[in-house]
C-alpha cells in the first residue's frame, strides 16, 4: 500500500508526537540515571520524574503527590478499582456492564475472591443512568468503578452525578473512574466531583505505550499489586520507567494545551463523517446518544454487513478503523458492549476514532471508502 494511511483508530492508540518521542530519547540517552541513585545523574532523573508528575497532576487537577505512574491504563484501573476493593472492609463492588476488560475482569476476579459484584446495565443510548447505578450501592459497598467515556461507543457517563449519588449512599465507598478515553478530549478535574481515583494512559494521548498513571486522592487506600524498593510511595515499586514517564508528562501537557481547539474540531469531523455515511447509506445506524458522545469516537452499525471484512475492505482503501474495540477485536463474537446496548449480531459495527491530527481531507477520503466498501460487501 503506497498511498498515505488515513488513520481513524485513535481510540486504539495514537501516533507518538515527535516532541514527545524526542523527550523520551533524551531521557534514555542523556538523563539515563536511576532516580534513586545518590549522584547527580540520579538527581537529574528524579527531577525529570518530579516534573512529569507535576505535568500529569496539573492536567487532571490533582496534586503531584497523588500521582502514581503505572505500566498503562490496565494497571491503573487494576490498582484503582481492584486494589481499592482489596484494601476496604466491605465485600461488595459495583460497576457497569460495559467496562473495559481491565475493570470487567478485575470485577470477575473479585467475584472469585468472594466479593459480591453488581453490574449496572446501560440504556440503549449507551449511557448509564445515575439512578440505576446508585440503586446498586449499599452502605457496605467497598468500591465502584465507572468508565468516563465508553471506549467502543464514545458515550459519556454522568460521572459527577454518579459519584455524588454513590457518596450520598456510602460515604466511605471508593469511587474509581476509568478516564483513559476521556483525558485530552473532555475537561477532567478530579476535584470537581467526589471521586477517589482516576486512571489515564499515555498512548491514547500521542504518548508511548507502556505507561499510564493513577491519580489517587490523598488519604484514599489501595493495596499494591507488587512489592519492591518502595518507589511510587510503595504503591508501584520498581525502578521508575523514566523515559515513558517523561513522555507521558509532555504528552498530557501538549494534549491539554491543544484541547480547547482540538476537541471541538474532532467533534465537527466526527459529525461530518456521520453525515457523509448516513447520506450515502441511509440504513447505517449511529450507536450512542449523539448529544452525549465524546468528540473523538463515532460508532456506526451497518445492517447485514460483517464487520471484519468491512474493516479489511477499508484497510484495502487505506483507511484504518476498528471493529468494536481493538483490544478484543480478535474475538469473533460480537462485543459485549454492542450486545449490552441491543445491537443485533448481524449488524457489523465499526468504530471511527479521531485525534488532533485528523484532517478534513481524511474524513472525506474515509467517507468515500466506507461507501465503496459497504457496496463491495453487500
Amino acid at each position, binding site marked *: 500500500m503506497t498511498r498515505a494511511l488515513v488513520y481513524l483508530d485513535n481510540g486504539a492508540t495514537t501516533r507518538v508526537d515527535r516532541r514527545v518521542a524526542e523527550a523520551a530519547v533524551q531521557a534514555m540517552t542523556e538523563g539515563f540515571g536511576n532516580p534513586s541513585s545518590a549522584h547527580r545523574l540520579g538527581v537529574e532523573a528524579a527531577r525529570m520524574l518530579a516534573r512529569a508528575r507535576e505535568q500529569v497532576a496539573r492536567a487532571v487537577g490533582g496534586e503531584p503527590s497523588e500521582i502514581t505512574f503505572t505500566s498503562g491504563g490496565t494497571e491503573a484501573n487494576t490498582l484503582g478499582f481492584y486494589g481499592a476493593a482489596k484494601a476496604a472492609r466491605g465485600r461488595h463492588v459495583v460497576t457497569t456492564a460495559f467496562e473495559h476488560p481491565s475493570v470487567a475482569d478485575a470485577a470477575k476476579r473479585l467475584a472469585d475472591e468472594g466479593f459480591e459484584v453488581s453490574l449496572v446495565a446501560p440504556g440503549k443510548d449507551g449511557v448509564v443512568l445515575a439512578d440505576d447505578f446508585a440503586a446498586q450501592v449499599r452502605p457496605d459497598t467497598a468500591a465502584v468503578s465507572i468508565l468516563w467515556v465508553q471506549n467502543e461507543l464514545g458515550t459519556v457517563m454522568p460521572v459527577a452525578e454518579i459519584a455524588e449519588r454513590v457518596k450520598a449512599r456510602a460515604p466511605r465507598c471508593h469511587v474509581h473512574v476509568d478516564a483513559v478515553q476521556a483525558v485530552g478530549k473532555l475537561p477532567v478535574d478530579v476535584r470537581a466531583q467526589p471521586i477517589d481515583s482516576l486512571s489515564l494512559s499515555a498512548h491514547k494521548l500521542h504518548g508511548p505505550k507502556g505507561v499510564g498513571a493513577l491519580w489517587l486522592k490523598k488519604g484514599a487506600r489501595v493495596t499494591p499489586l507488587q512489592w519492591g524498593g518502595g518507589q511510587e510511595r510503595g504503591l508501584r515499586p520498581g525502578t521508575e520507567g523514566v523515559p515513558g514517564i517523561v513522555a507521558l508528562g509532555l504528552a498530557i501537557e501538549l494534549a491539554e494545551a491543544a484541547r480547547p481547539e482540538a476537541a471541538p474540531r474532532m467533534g465537527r469531523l466526527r459529525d461530518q463523517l456521520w453525515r457523509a455515511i448516513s447520506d450515502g447509506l441511509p440504513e447505517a445506524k449511529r450507536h450512542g446518544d449523539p448529544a452525549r458522545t465524546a468528540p473523538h469516537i463515532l460508532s456506526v452499525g451497518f445492517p447485514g454487513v*460483517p464487520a471484519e*471484512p468491512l474493516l*479489511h475492505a477499508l484497510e484495502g482503501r487505506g483507511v484504518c478503523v476498528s471493529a468494536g474495540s481493538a483490544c478484543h477485536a480478535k474475538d469473533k463474537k460480537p462485543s459485549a458492549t454492542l450486545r449490552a446496548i441491543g445491537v443485533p449480531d448481524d449488524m457489523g459495527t465499526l468504530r471511527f476514532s479521531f485525534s488532533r491530527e485528523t484532517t478534513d481531507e481524511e474524513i472525506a477520503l474515509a467517507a468515500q471508502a466506507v461507501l465503496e466498501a459497504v457496496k463491495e460487501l453487500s
Partner: protein
Amino acid sequence: LTSVLLTRYGEIFLKGQNRGFFERRLVENIKRSVAGIPGARVERTHGRVLVWPPADDASGSKTLRAVARVFGLTSVSPAAVVPRELAAISVAAVESARREVARRGGRPTFKVETRRSDKRFQPASPEVSKQVGAAIVEALDLPVDVHHPQLEVGVEIGFEHAFVYAETAPGPGGLPVGVTGKVELLLSGGIDSPVAGWLMLKRGCELGATYFHSFPYTGDHSKEKVSQLARALAAWQLADVRLNVVHFTDVQKALREASGDGRLAVVLYRRMMMRIAERLARSSGARALVTGEALAQVASQTLENLAVIGDSVRIPILRPCLAHDKQETIAIARRIGTYETSIQPYDDCCSLFVPEHPETRAKLDDVRACESRLDVEALADACARSVETITCRG
C-alpha cells in the same frame, strides 16, 4: 571438564550406495543447526559426528538444543572429553553417573558400555567396562544390571581422546532434510498443515509453502500468522522456507457463485487450490503437494471428496496426517512449536465462504458441471502468476 556432543544416526546406514550422500548432507545440516552459535564446531570422525560447543556453552546445553532439530539424528549424548587413560575415564564416568542419578533421582541399575574406535587401545572393551563399572559401584553403590540397565554409562575410545557420558537425549529421527526431494506444502493457519510439513521434513524433504489469502475477508494478521508458521518450519528445515501467498479472493468469489447453493463450494476451492499449487510446485521443482488433511476430520475430507479433490491435478498429493487423530496431530504441533501460533484466532478462510451444510459425498460430474461455468485453468494460471513471495527465515 571439556564436553562434546556425540551424535548418532540410524536409518542412513540402511541406504546402501547413498550412504555417503546422506552422511554429507547430515553433516552439512548439523553445521547449519549450530550456525547461530558462534564458536561451535562440527567434526566428522570414525562413524561419529562430534559437535564441540563453544567455551561460553561449556555444558553444551544450548548447542544440544540446536542439534536436536537435525533430522536423521537418532540420539545425542553430551560427553566428557578425557585423556585415554583408565583412571581419568573412571573419574569422569563416576562424575557423569553421579550427575545423571541426581537428575533422575532414585538408585537406578546400570551398566557400562565401551566402544573402541581405536582398536589398538588396551585393555579391550569388556575389560574397560568392568574396571569403570567397579569404580562406579565403589563410589555410588549402584546395582549392576548388564541386561536391562536403567542407566547406561558410555565410554568411547577415540584416537585422540576418550569420551564418557551417562545422558542420551533422543534426536528427531527420520532422514536428513534435502535427501529425498522437494515438496510444496499447502499451508493454512490451522494446526494440521504445519504438522504435515514437519512430517515431510522428517522424511528428508525440502519444503516450499503456499498460502491462499482472501483479503478483505481475512485480514493481514492471518497472513502474518502463516508466515510465523513457515518460520517455525524453516527452523526445522535449517533453511529459509519460500512462502507463496496466492491472492484468492476473486477466484473464491467466482467459485462460490458457480457452486449455486454452495454445497460444493469447499470442494471447488480445494480443487482450485491444488491446481494453483501444482503450477507453483512445477515452477519450483517440487514433485508432490502436501496437505494437512485427515480422513473425515471435516466435511471436505471424506474419501469421496478427497478423490474428487485429487482428480483436479496430475501431481501426487501427499497427506501425512491422513490417519492421525486430532490429538496426535496436536501433540506433534506442541512439540514442534507451531501449536501456540496455530490457535491464534486469525482465520485462514472467512466463514462467509463456507456453506452451513457442505456436501460430504461430492460427485465428480456435479463438480465438473459447476467448473464448466468458468475457465478454471486460466484462473489457476492467473493466480499462480500473480503470487506474492515471502522468504521465511527460521
